[in-house]
Structures are given as structure tokens and as C-alpha cells.
């Protein structure tokens, strides 16, 4: 094996990429070595995904050069990148749901006989690769769309390995995996490293990075901040590098208040398929109640259930002491219920991107703005202006398409459209994802101000820090159940992490 450790396997020089008016990468220099696991960290919007897309040939950079294995390259397509030895596992993006597992694994280079795909050989190849990632239980002829998400992700990894990569890129590849699969992936990656492969590993989970990475690079606002060997910086320092400044001062102070007697929202025994079980809690007026835990433990489903999106719910929900049946978002927004949801994906669930800022803001409130059959345009304009001013949405004209705004301002539009309905209960699904720190801070203040005005807020966040800084109480979910409720000083990173992995309950169960 040639010693490639001196000259890096991959090196980028001055890479820049702009989408529309948004600078995704600015003059990035970056290098990754063979035989090493290199973690790339950064907030959403820091430029990690664009970096990967450039390396994998999905997008072409506007400026800069890239060298791979000592040769200057410019990949025009993922095919070229694959051919050179750069293989990327995207977050579920490249699964072809209607094809079989074996077809997916050998999608571009199937074994052939007389120009025909050799099914038997392809199947054996799939079995061998699945065995390599420890998934012998997956039937190669199963339709991949019928497999659960975690299995699909493992097939994607097997597919990547089948292309004999020199550089393997894993983009949040473990986000959907079960704990057992995560361990398998770790073992595979360690083995590949000793075999001399380079691995770029993108993850949000700090504990994974501690366990896996040899080298860590931090990105912020489209720029490369620093690269250092594991252990050279503490967790807090890494977070500061990602955020760009001291993280402690961004949250508004929490007022001390006595627990309110009459809960605004009361949930009893809520269950849904196998994703939610026996969820019971109450939230009072002016309270910010956090939802925490690992990703995908039922937090999203809980919010959707309260908003009337899920069918076949068990249990009961009461608002202001009155039991209600919420069967659609329309029902949830009725005046006597008054629930609003800031959804997970603002681009597909929160906003109608090609339509104007104003039209998006009043989409929830057109009924109230209609006189006879006609939209009262004067009233509409004044409501829009009021919201733009109240939330300080940075916008050229309210007639501009909402797609032209930055992520933070887009999220403000989503919040604005719901504030127009003056909701009693506000549900938020990870509202600060991919948003700049300044806007985050504004959103935290806004949430606290709304709570002070009497709203009840349910905030799900994947960022522990946010739960600690914002919430009066935090419920930790695990496997669709509430495993712990933290309050006051008990809301700490240690407690959240311990509960998130369901460690505390395990201990309690033993005791």
C-alpha cells in the first residue's frame, strides 16, 4: 500500500459555492487523510452538506480547486466521483424505493452476462456485502421501500462499500439507526480505517464523534473554522467554535413562577401505532415545556398528534379543561382549541416557497380577513406589516417570494403566520434548525414573551442546550414514552443525556 499519509487523500483549496443569493461555502481550504476517520462538525447551514456535495460531484463549486489522491479533479457528476473512488452515503436520499435490495446495491455496476444483469450473481454480491455490514437478515430480493428506515440505511452503507471507495463519506448516516446497528457501523468504520480508507463523517451526535473520530473539523457560516486532532479541544470549546461565541448569554432569563393550577393542555394516555405509548402530561398557562431525547423517539409524532395530523389515536386531550377531539389541523386551529404548529421542515411543511412573504403570513388567517367573499386587502396589508415589524423580518418587499429570504427570516415568517391566529397553545418542532445565531436569540426571546403573555408552548429541540436555556420543564421521550420529566435545576446536560439514552430509568428499574 502506498503511503498516502503525507500528502492528503483529499484536499480542497479556495472552494466557494453560492445558491441564488446565499453563500453556502466561502473560500474553503480543507484536507482529509487516508486511513483516518475525519469528523466534520457544524450547525445546520454551516456548509457541511454543500461541502460534501462538492466532494461527491453533486454540485459544482463556483471557484476553487480540488485534488484527490494527488491528482487535480473536478467531478461533474456523482458517477465521476464514484469512478475516482469517492463514495457518499447521503441521508436516505439515494435509496430507490421500488427496486429490490440487491438492485439498489448494484445499481450502477451490476454483474452482467450477455448484456443482461446476472440476477444470481447480483444476489450473491448483495448477500456478501450485507454480511459485511452484519445484516444477513435482510432478504436481497425484498423491495427496499418495504424495509424500515434503519435497514434501508444499512443497505445504503453496504451499497457504498460495494463501490470500493478510497474515501467514504457518511452524511448523518447513523441518524436513523438502532443502537445495535450503530455499533456495527462503528466496527466497520474502524476496520476500514485500518485498511487505509479515508472516512469523512458528518454527525450531530457529540458522543459518536468522541468514539469514532481521529480528526475533527469545525465549519461555521460556510467557512472552515479549524481542524484539530480529537482531544485537542473540549466539548464546550467545540460548541463555541460551531456557534462562534460564548453560548451562555443567548437565552432570556426564566421567570420564577408558581405552578399554575388549571392546565391549559392536558394529555392522558395518548398512544399511536407503535410510535407513541401512554403519553400523559399537563402544561399550564405561560409555560414553556420542552420535549427532548434522541432523535426519532416520538417527539415529532406527539406534536403531529396534538395538531390533528395522525389518525387512530388512543387516549384523550383536553384544552382549558374541556375534552376535545382534534381530527385535522383545521380542527386544531378552531377558536375554542387554538393550537398552532411550527413544523419540522419549513420548506415543505411550513411555507409555500414561491409565494410572497405576505401571502404566506396570512395563509392561516384568510378566513378572518375575509369580508363577504373578498379578502380585505387593507386589513391584510396592515396585519402583514404589523407582523413583519413585530418579528423584525428582514425583507425587501412583502410581495417578494418567501424563497428569497434567509433561513432565519423564513422561519420568522412561519412563526408570524401562526401568531396571526393568536394561538393558545404553540407547538414547535425544532424551530431553530439551520438558523443563524442572531435569529435564534430573537426566537428565544419571542417564545418567552409569548409565554409571558399567557401562551402555552411545547418546544421540541434536538439541541440540548436550547432545552436547558429555554424551558421551564423538559420531558424526555424514549421509544415513544415519556421516560423522565426534568424541572428547574435538574434540567442539565447530564440529566438530559442520561435520560435520553434511558439510562436513568434502567437504573431505577434495577433499584
Amino acid at each position, binding site marked *: 500500500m502506498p503511503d498516502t499519509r503525507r500528502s492528503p487523500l483529499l484536499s480542497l483549496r479556495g472552494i466557494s459555492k453560492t445558491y441564488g443569493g446565499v453563500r453556502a461555502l466561502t473560500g474553503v481550504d480543507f484536507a482529509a487523510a487516508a486511513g483516518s476517520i475525519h469528523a466534520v462538525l457544524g450547525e445546520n447551514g454551516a456548509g457541511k452538506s454543500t461541502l460534501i*456535495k462538492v466532494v461527491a460531484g*453533486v*454540485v459544482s463549486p463556483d471557484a476553487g480547486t480540488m485534488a484527490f489522491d494527488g491528482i487535480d479533479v473536478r467531478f461533474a457528476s456523482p458517477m465521476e466521483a464514484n469512478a475516482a473512488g469517492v463514495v457518499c452515503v447521503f441521508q436516505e436520499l439515494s435509496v430507490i424505493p421500488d427496486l429490490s435490495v440487491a438492485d439498489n446495491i448494484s445499481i450502477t455496476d451490476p454483474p452482467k452476462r450477455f448484456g443482461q444483469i446476472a440476477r444470481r450473481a447480483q444476489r450473491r454480491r448483495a448477500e456478501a456485502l450485507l454480511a459485511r455490514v452484519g445484516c444477513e437478515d435482510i432478504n436481497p430480493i425484498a423491495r427496499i421501500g418495504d424495509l424500515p428506515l434503519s435497514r434501508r440505511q444499512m443497505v445504503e452503507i453496504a451499497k457504498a462499500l460495494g463501490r470500493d471507495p478510497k474515501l467514504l463519506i457518511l452524511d448523518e448516516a447513523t441518524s436513523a439507526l438502532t443502537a445495535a446497528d450503530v455499533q456495527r457501523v462503528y466496527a466497520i468504520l474502524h476496520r476500514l480505517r485500518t485498511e487505509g480508507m479515508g472516512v469523512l463523517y458528518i454527525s450531530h451526535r457529540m458522543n459518536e464523534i468522541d468514539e469514532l473520530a481521529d480528526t475533527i473539523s469545525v465549519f461555521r457560516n460556510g467557512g472552515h473554522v479549524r481542524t484539530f486532532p480529537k482531544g485537542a479541544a473540549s466539548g464546550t470549546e467545540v460548541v463555541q467554535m460551531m456557534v462562534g461565541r460564548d453560548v451562555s448569554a443567548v437565552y432570556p432569563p426564566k421567570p420564577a413562577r408558581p405552578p399554575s393550577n388549571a392546565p391549559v393542555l392536558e394529555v392522558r394516555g395518548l398512544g399511536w401505532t407503535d410510535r407513541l405509548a401512554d403519553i400523559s402530561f399537563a402544561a399550564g398557562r405561560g409555560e414553556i415545556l420542552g420535549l427532548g431525547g434522541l432523535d426519532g423517539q416520538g417527539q415529532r409524532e406527539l406534536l403531529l398528534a396534538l*395538531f390533528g*395530523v395522525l389518525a387512530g389515536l388512543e387516549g384523550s386531550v383536553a384544552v382549558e379543561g374541556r375534552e376535545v377531539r382534534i381530527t*385535522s*389541523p*383545521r380542527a*386544531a*386551529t378552531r377558536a375554542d382549541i387554538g393550537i398552532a*404548529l411550527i*413544523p419540522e421542515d419549513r420548506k*415543505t*411543511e*411550513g*411555507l*409555500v*416557497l*414561491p*409565494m410572497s412573504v405576505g*401571502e404566506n403570513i396570512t*395563509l*392561516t388567517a*384568510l*378566513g378572518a380577513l*375575509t369580508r363577504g*367573499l*373578498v*379578502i380585505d*386587502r387593507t386589513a391584510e396589508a396592515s396585519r402583514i406589516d404589523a407582523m413583519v415589524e413585530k418579528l423584525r423580518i428582514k425583507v425587501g418587499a412583502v410581495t*417578494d*417570494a418567501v*424563497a*428569497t429570504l434567509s433561513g432565519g427570516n423564513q422561519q420568522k415568517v412561519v412563526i408570524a*403566520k401562526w401568531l396571526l*391566529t393568536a394561538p393558545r397553545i404553540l407547538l414547535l418542532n425544532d424551530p431553530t434548525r439551520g438558523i443563524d445565531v442572531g435569529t435564534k436569540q430573537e426566537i428565544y426571546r419571542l417564545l418567552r414573551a409569548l409565554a409571558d403573555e399567557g401562551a402555552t408552548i411545547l418546544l421540541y429541540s434536538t439541541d440540548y442546550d436550547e432545552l436547558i436555556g429555554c424551558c421551564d420543564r423538559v420531558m424526555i421521550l424514549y421509544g415513544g414514552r415519556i421516560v423522565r420529566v426534568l424541572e428547574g435545576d435538574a434540567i442539565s446536560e447530564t440529566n438530559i443525556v442520561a435520560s435520553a439514552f434511558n439510562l436513568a430509568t434502567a437504573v431505577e428499574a434495577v433499584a
Partner: protein
Amino acid sequence: MRAMLAGADRPLVFAGGFILAILAVGSVYTLATAGTLTLLSPTYLVLQLKVAAFLGIVAAGMMLVVLLGHIDLSVPWTMAASAMLATAWGGPMAIPVGLAVGLAIGVVNGIGVAYLRVPSMIFTLGVNVVLRGLMVMLTGGFSPSSQPTETMLYLAKGSVLGIPNPVLIWGAICLGVAFVLRRTPLGRYIYAIGNRESAVYLSGIDTRLVLVATFALCSLLASAAGLLLAGYSSKAFQAMGDPYLLPAIAAVVIGGTNILGGSGKLSGTVAGTILIVLLQSVLSVMAMPEAGRQIIYGVVIVGMLLAYGRGEKARS
């Protein structure tokens, strides 16, 4: 996205320019062959508008459905069924009966698309075939006793101040549709659903009702066109709607409405309608055989769309 707004007006400019070009070419032809400028005479132009009115009403309804990102292939037999039932059964109530038939068909289409989530192309295709079958069954394969009422005849053949009534009705319908699209919540929801139905649903709006209402409007307009056409031809007949489906879709897309939904203006559809009618007429004035007309017709549609340069953004 300013560019996008400008882009929405581009079809109007293109279609307008093309209409002028058709008139110019046709006029050169008539000047050279007969020494007249027939095409520029008010009589000719008003007649063309009258012919365009039937297609224009259908296209206005089709546009609403296309804005949703759907399509209505049941238009031909919605026209025929409304007109046939109205003239056969309606008696003096022919017009309300015909419109009610159209409304009912639209509601069925809407339910299939919105509640059963069957792709609109297939569901409305099936409804079209069923309607045809029903009409054949009810009439036993013969032309029914088809006598349009006096009102229908007047609306289709009369005129006010020299303007044919169908043109006035088309104009009124266009004002109505433009009003719905620009000033009412329904119009706002139609555009929004065409762009992203999930976001509209999560904004607390019953998108299924919007779909049903829009399909109902489309069929209502198709039945209005059918009634008008029955008055114009003094009878309702079986295949009367067949020549209107594809030109209606063509008028909508030539007018710049995105076939995937979400953007488009009624003014564009009106321009597209006039363009198609004028193109057909001028080609027939020029004694172009049917073969040549079809070819030019197809080339114009593709050419216009390529000229707008609207590309799908399937890949990031």
C-alpha cells in the same frame, strides 16, 4: 424571484406577439391572393372572438384545475352530458339543469381526487368514459330530442351593441374567475395547493374541500360552454365536446400556466385561447390542409414552451 414574476408575464408578451404575427402573415396572404385585408376587418375579428368564447370558457375552468397541479380530462363529456340532459329533460329549466349536471360531475371528480387520492388524470379519464357510456345508455344510441330553449338560443346567437353574447358571457366569466383567483381565499388556496399541498394542509386549511370546489368550478364552466354550444348549434349532440379538450389544455399551457400547478395568470389563458383559435382560422383561410394545421399546431405549442425556457428543477 422577481425574475419569476417577470417570467409569469413573459407568456403573455410572447402569445400577444405571436397573435400579431399570425394576423400579419395572414394579411400578407390575403393581400397577395385576393387583394383584401379580411383578417383585419372588425367583422372577422369579432367572429373569431365568438368562436374563441366556447374554448375560452372551457380553458378558464381547466386553468383552475391545472393551477392545483391536476387536470380534468372529463371536460368533453361534461360539456356533452350537460347540454344533452339539459335539452332533453330540462324543458324550460334547461340551463339550471345543465349547470347542475356539470356541478355534480365536478363534485364526483373532486371527491375521487381529493378523498380517494386517485391521480386526477386517471380518475377524470374514467369519469369521461362513464359519462359517455351513460349518455349512450340514456339516449339508446340515437340523438335525443334536443331542443334548446329560447334563452339558450338567445345567449348563443344574439348580440348586444354588436358584440355577440358568447363573447360577453366569456368576458363575464373571465372577470369572475379573475376575481376568484385574485380576491378570494379560494383563489389564494388554489395557488398555494398547486405549490405545496402539505404546507397548506398544515396551515389549518381543509385542502380537500378546496380541491372539490375547484373541480366543481371547472366542470361548471365546462357545462356552461356545453349549453352555449348547444344553443349555437341549435342542438346538443354526442361528440360535441371532443374537439375542446386538447385545445383547452394547450391554451392553458401556452398562456404560461405551469402544468405542475402553482403559477399562471388568467390573462395568459385568454391570450392562449385567442392564439389557438386565430391560428386555426388563419390556417384555414390560407387553405392549409388539415395535415399542415395539425403539424403547425403541435410545433407552436412546443416552440412556445421552449421559448419560455421554463425548466423543471428536478435536480438540485
